[in-house]
């Protein structure tokens, strides 16, 4: 499956390594000759994003306490906004008045919006999924509301994100009933068609389908076949990161990237832990999102190369090092662990400082991945990364297996 393409070699691979849609141009810059990892650029209306890329989540039109400048300084290129929250407040009419979320929140790089479906199912009581859409009770006045594919796209059109996600029939991955997943697989296809029809802005806003099928390979294959036939600018792998075991998670990702077109971006939703990011890149994924880095910051945790440190811990009271002396973020340039220890969970500025660091950490990780692929040393990068992350080389079995599936063996 692995093909050898590098910056040095030829034009022969150009045809399968790039694609062009009205609002998205994708081009592979380099591929790993051993695994399925690749690094590319994705040109969107507001920004050209380097892939693989992690998207921090700015739920309500803001990155939890950070100025847009600070988010840019931490090297974020594309952020995620939540359709359910923004559709509720401030609502699509106000966003239309401001022309886009970009303008409203003063973020001039790229934005991706989710469809709102997942939030509703996870946040709201009595959310019921019918063929029409997601039926739910308004948390404000208890009245019955309906989020249809059309309505989801209408809100996302108002938000104006560079990439929109289809409304998909999301099933809790731990559901046991095959039938339920089968229904969801086919319904997701029908909802994709409705979403595509409802998109008023195809020249400026991309619409990504979301592959379903739970943990069932046959259903995944059906979903892959049906959704790729719609010839979308990019695709997402959905229905994962919902608490399933990792040894069930990675085979599904592997299957999907094997069947998704090479010359289009692949987005695995809800992935954000460093180890998961590295493995998924090896499996051929390009885009990720997760609330984890910004959420854990608010609990006082900073991301480092072997996991995270909780700055509340007493051991940091007299530690005058920065979080990470290799990190060039403004937090690490200016503050010590000792200072952070005195303010975490006490002053809101601690949230800001740690969020900046954690976003910068994720960006640096992604940049290191990209550079290692460009320089033909991705495999070594993965080996070194895992060795640093897992002391005594106590690698989890799923990591060993997933990497072995793409011909990477870890150091022992």
């Amino acid at each position: 499956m692995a093909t050898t393409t590098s910056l040095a070699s030829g034009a022969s691979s150009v045809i399968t390594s790039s694609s062009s849609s009205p609002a998205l141009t994708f081009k592979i810059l380099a591929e790993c000759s051993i695994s399925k990892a690749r690094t590319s650029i994705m040109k969107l209306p507001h920004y050209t994003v380097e892939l693989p890329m992690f998207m921090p989540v700015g739920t309500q039109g803001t990155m939890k306490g950070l100025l847009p400048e600070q988010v840019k300084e931490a090297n974020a290129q594309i952020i995620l906004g939540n359709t359910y929250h923004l559709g509720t407040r401030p609502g699509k009419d106000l966003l239309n008045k401001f022309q886009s979320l970009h303008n409203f929140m003063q973020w001039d790089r790229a934005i991706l919006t989710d469809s709102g479906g997942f939030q509703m199912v996870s946040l709201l009581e009595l959310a019921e999924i019918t063929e029409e859409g997601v039926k739910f009770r308004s948390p404000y006045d208890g009245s019955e509301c309906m989020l249809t594919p059309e309505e989801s796209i209408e809100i996302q059109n108002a938000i104006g994100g560079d990439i929109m996600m289809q409304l998909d029939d999301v099933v809790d991955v731990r559901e046991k009933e095959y039938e339920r997943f089968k229904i969801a697989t086919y319904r997701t296809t029908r909802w994709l068609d409705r979403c595509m029809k409802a998109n008023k802005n195809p020249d400026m806003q991309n619409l990504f389908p979301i592959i379903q099928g739970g943990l069932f390979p046959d259903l995944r294959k059906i979903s892959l076949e049906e959704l790729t036939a719609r010839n979308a600018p990019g695709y997402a792998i959905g229905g994962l990161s919902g608490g399933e075991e990792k040894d069930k998670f990675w085979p599904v990702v592997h299957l999907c990237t094997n069947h998704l077109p090479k010359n289009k971006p692949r987005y695995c939703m809800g992935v954000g832990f460093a180890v998961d990011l590295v493995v998924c890149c090896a499996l051929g994924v390009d885009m990720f999102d997760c609330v984890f880095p910004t959420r854990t910051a608010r609990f006082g945790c900073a991301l480092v190369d072997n996991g995270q440190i909780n700055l509340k811990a007493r051991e940091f009271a007299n530690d005058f090092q920065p979080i990470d002396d290799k990190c060039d973020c403004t937090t690490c340039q200016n503050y010590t662990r000792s200072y952070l220890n005195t303010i975490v969970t006490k002053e809101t500025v601690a949230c800001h400082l740690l969020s900046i660091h954690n976003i910068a950490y994720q960006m640096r990780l992604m940049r290191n991945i990209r550079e290692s692929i460009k320089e033909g040393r991705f495999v070594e990068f993965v080996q070194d990364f895992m060795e640093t992350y897992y002391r005594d080389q106590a690698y989890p079995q799923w990591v060993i297996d997933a990497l072995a599936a793409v011909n990477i063996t870890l150091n022992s």
Partner: protein
Amino acid sequence: MQPDWFEALNDADTDKNSTKKRVSKSLLLSKSLLEQCVEAHKNSENLQDSSFFIPLLGGHCESERTRWSKAVAGTLNSYERFGGFSLLGMHTNGSTAETLAPKLISSLTKSSLDPLPSEYPRQSFGAWNPLAILSLTKLGVDIFDSAFPFLVTERKAALKFPVSLDSESDETPVNDSLTHQSKKLKTENAPEISNGQELSEEIVSNEGENPREDNIISPFEMSLKDESNFSVTEPILVGCQCYTCKNFTRSYIHHLVNVNELLAPVLLMIHNLHHWTKFFESIRSAIKTGRLTDLEIKIQSYILDIYP
């Protein structure tokens, strides 16, 4: 910490409700604390480059404040590295400072400062509103803090009062501030406003121990909680050069306030501190050009326009 200057430890836990007995006790204790601080300061190597400020106490009792200051005046020559005075004991921080009438603050301050030489800096910390600041400035107070803009930020509001004598871009009160007029502060004795002096009493509340609810704001600010901001595409203050006003609309800030996002107080504080700093630049400039009274009148007229 090795500060440039510090306040000698004191008992300033008095406010307008304190009994005479409480005030006396605070003075007694503070006298002893002051002597100990001076001694400790003398013997401290690390504080050789730090000066200390002497607290000026006496609660809300003018005679006690005078008595204390006279006693202090007599001892000044014996101190090394004494740097200035700190006016204390009139409030217990937060809104308890905001709701004192400027006239009252002035008379208490005057009784503390009159017996003392004028060549030392005086600081008066607390959430004094802009008119109180001007009254205190006229009495010769030199150093204030940012408690007022902080309180304004905490209640999700933004300062709008005119800060400059010369600027033409000063915002006149926008009509949609009518919606929060009904929540104006109450006064104990509510005289008719006939001139500026009585006006400053008008804007004072005497609501006892908890002077201010969340939805009550001063006439110097506008509330971003207010629904009227929902779709306003203008900044908090047109012409303001702060980061917030140069980049964000009232609509966006209102949204952040409405959904309880951390960025709301960040943006508000940036504006409020900027506005506060500009206010003090104006004060200094007005003093240099002999126009402090003009500045005071300008702000008083602004208040009158809001509460005609």
